[in-house]
């Protein structure tokens, strides 16, 4: 599940389980050893008592010269046993062993040997044995003394210890996980509060976010706040545009109505053209307004030029215009692809309209960080000194061809928005007009060169350098 609370709790549970598990294992092992050592020590003193009371009579074999204090050794199959093995395998045993025997001694290693063996009742026994020389009434004799006690008591103690430790650690672990879950829930509370505030802002019950958030999420809140501000500004701008448009339309409409009432067809036509131009202009403005904040958009000029060429070939099918598109297929331009389509579409349509059937589009890198798209035709081109005129809004050099005359002005405006520019010159190859669109871009994927990344169209103080 994609939840922070879940993730953190899950991780904690895992870590706590592994950590506490290891510690519990270690604790149990250590305590087990201690219990075993204590039990062995008790067994050791019994062994000492047996050794101290042991004697050897060559006629009888090994024997105890005095009984042991613990009556358990005399009760049959009590779980407390001793056995003395003399030279030649002669044995003396406690009464408790009855007619069974303990395992034969190992004789090595030297010293006291401890091991677990099966007893006469098939119970587990802890057995201690030791090889000693006794100084008896009949001289020095080597014997082996063995003492065994049932493990039951020790095993029960160990089992209960293990159970207690596991229980304690399980409780501790559960507690830890619960605390972490609480911490996470509590720690994430500011996020929930922020969300709640955002909801309130969206529903209009609140103007601003409460910025008194913890330092970790304060920047986030500030960013959201900035976004809200930007949105508000955009909406205001849009509202302004709509207002401007409505007001700008009122006058021509009034004139148009008067012209219609007066039967002045020419006047009406002029006004309707004005209206059309106004609408076009404001549509562009709206588009440009929408651009603020779309930094980072990229488009591939060659693919766009090819799509446009296909469309234009259809549009001009009757005239059989040859449109060639060439250049860097990897080139990318830092502009929204709709806007690049609009710019290139206008330039290529112009070339089809004014050329004599040859149009060439070329995409190349002009300088690091700049991509130039040149649209050339084989038409009459521009007269000397007329370059700027064609760019003026609404002025067409050749009034005979259809079109609103807004084409180049739109391209120039849009290019400026993207820190680019449109220049017109004579095409050396085709002889007609060559429109050069110079825009920020690059060849292929990778970072943009230069220290100043594209600042976006409306970035204050970082306007396009004049070229």
């Amino acid at each position, binding site marked *: 599940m994609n939840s922070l609370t879940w993730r953190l709790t899950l991780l904690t549970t895992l870590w706590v389980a592994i950590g506490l598990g290891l510690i519990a294992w270690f604790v149990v092992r250590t305590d087990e050893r201690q219990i075993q050592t204590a039990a062995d020590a008790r067994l050791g003193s019994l062994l000492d008592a047996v050794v101290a009371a042991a004697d050897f009579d060559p006629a009888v074999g090994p024997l105890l010269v005095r009984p042991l204090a613990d009556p358990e050794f005399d009760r049959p199959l009590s779980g407390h046993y001793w056995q003395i093995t003399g030279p030649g395998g002669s044995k003396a045993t406690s009464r408790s062993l009855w007619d069974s025997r303990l395992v034969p001694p190992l004789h090595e290693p030297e010293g006291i040997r401890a091991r677990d063996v099966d007893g006469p009742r098939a119970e587990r026994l802890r057995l201690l044995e030791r090889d000693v020389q006794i100084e008896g009434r009949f001289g020095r004799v080597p014997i082996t003394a063995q003492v065994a006690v049932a493990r039951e008591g020790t095993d029960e103690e160990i089992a209960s210890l293990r159970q207690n430790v596991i229980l304690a650690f399980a409780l501790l672990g559960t507690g830890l996980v619960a605390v972490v879950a609480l911490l996470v829930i509590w720690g994430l509370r500011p996020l929930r509060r922020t969300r709640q505030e955002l909801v309130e802002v969206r529903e209009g019950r609140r103007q601003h976010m409460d910025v008194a958030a913890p330092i970790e999420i304060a920047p986030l809140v500030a960013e959201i706040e900035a976004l809200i501000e930007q949105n508000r500004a955009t909406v205001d701008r849009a509202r302004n545009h709509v207002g401007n448009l409505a007001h700008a339309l009122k006058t021509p409409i009034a004139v148009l109505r008067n012209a219609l009432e007066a039967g002045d067809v020419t006047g009406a036509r002029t006004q309707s053209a004005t209206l059309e131009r106004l609408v076009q202009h404001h549509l562009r403005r709206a588009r440009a307004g929408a651009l603020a904040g779309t930094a980072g958009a990229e488009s591939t000029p060659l693919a766009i030029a090819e799509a446009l060429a296909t469309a234009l070939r259809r549009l001009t*099918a009757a005239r059989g215009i040859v449109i060639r598109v060439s250049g860097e297929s990897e080139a990318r331009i830092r502009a929204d*692809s709709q806007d690049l389509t609009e710019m290139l579409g206008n330039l290529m349509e112009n070339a089809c309209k004014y050329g004599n059937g040859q149009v060439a589009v070329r995409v190349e890198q002009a300088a690091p960080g700049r991509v130039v798209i040149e649209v050339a035709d084989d038409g009459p081109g521009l007269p000397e000194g007329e370059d700027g005129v064609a760019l003026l809004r609404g002025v067409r050099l050749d009034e005979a061809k259809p079109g609103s005359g807004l084409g180049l002005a739109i391209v120039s405006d849009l290019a400026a928005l993207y820190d680019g520019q449109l220049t017109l010159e004579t095409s050396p190859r085709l002889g007609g007009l060559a429109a050069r669109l110079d825009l920020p871009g690059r060849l292929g994927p990778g970072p943009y060169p230069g220290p100043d990344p594209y600042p976006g169209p409306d970035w204050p103080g970082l306007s396009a350098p004049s070229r």
Partner: protein
Amino acid sequence: MRLLIVEDSPELHQQLRAGLTEAGFAVDGAMDGEEAFYLGETEPYDAVVLDLGLPRVDGLTVLRRWRAAERAIPVLILTARDSWTEKVEGLNAGADDYLGKPFAMAELVARLNALIRRSNGVAKTELVFGEVRLDTAARAVSRAGQTVRLTALEYGMLAYLALHAGRPISKTELTEHLYTQDFDRDSNTLEVIVGRLRRKLGDSLIETVRGQGYRLIAANSG
């Protein structure tokens, strides 16, 4: 020439119908995409004027469906959405021409005429048959240099025969391309029109092919 107008705004629909009828087209109309698709599928239109923002099924989808069904009717998209991105999308979906709103009726008529000429493989705007000249752009007809006045139906029949000059055209085909869907189609009227055309332009221009219909003698070059 028979047209299908697909436009959902009632005022513009009415204006288009009036303007194009006046320009000599037989005009059928559809107000939504579903109706448009059905009509374009079943009726033999010479061209379609297609709006993009339509109720039920949008214009581009209608166009794509026609093209998928291999209907090759010439389609002119007439829309307020005239950014180049939208133009490219429309043209590459199979439209033959694109006109943005607002538009002048004269330009629409000229574009439609050019479209119909092109779809019939005729590149020139002026067709010459002996001493008869037919200017498809200006919709003007002259005989031996003298302008001849024709009614819309007469012009429509002449233009249709001229665009398919040399091929006999059946009465059914002529009816389908001269009259709208709801017109009372009486094939006798065709004979009346042919009679009037022969009277105005000369008997030898249109010949009757027995059992097959009418044929215009092949065009002279020039």
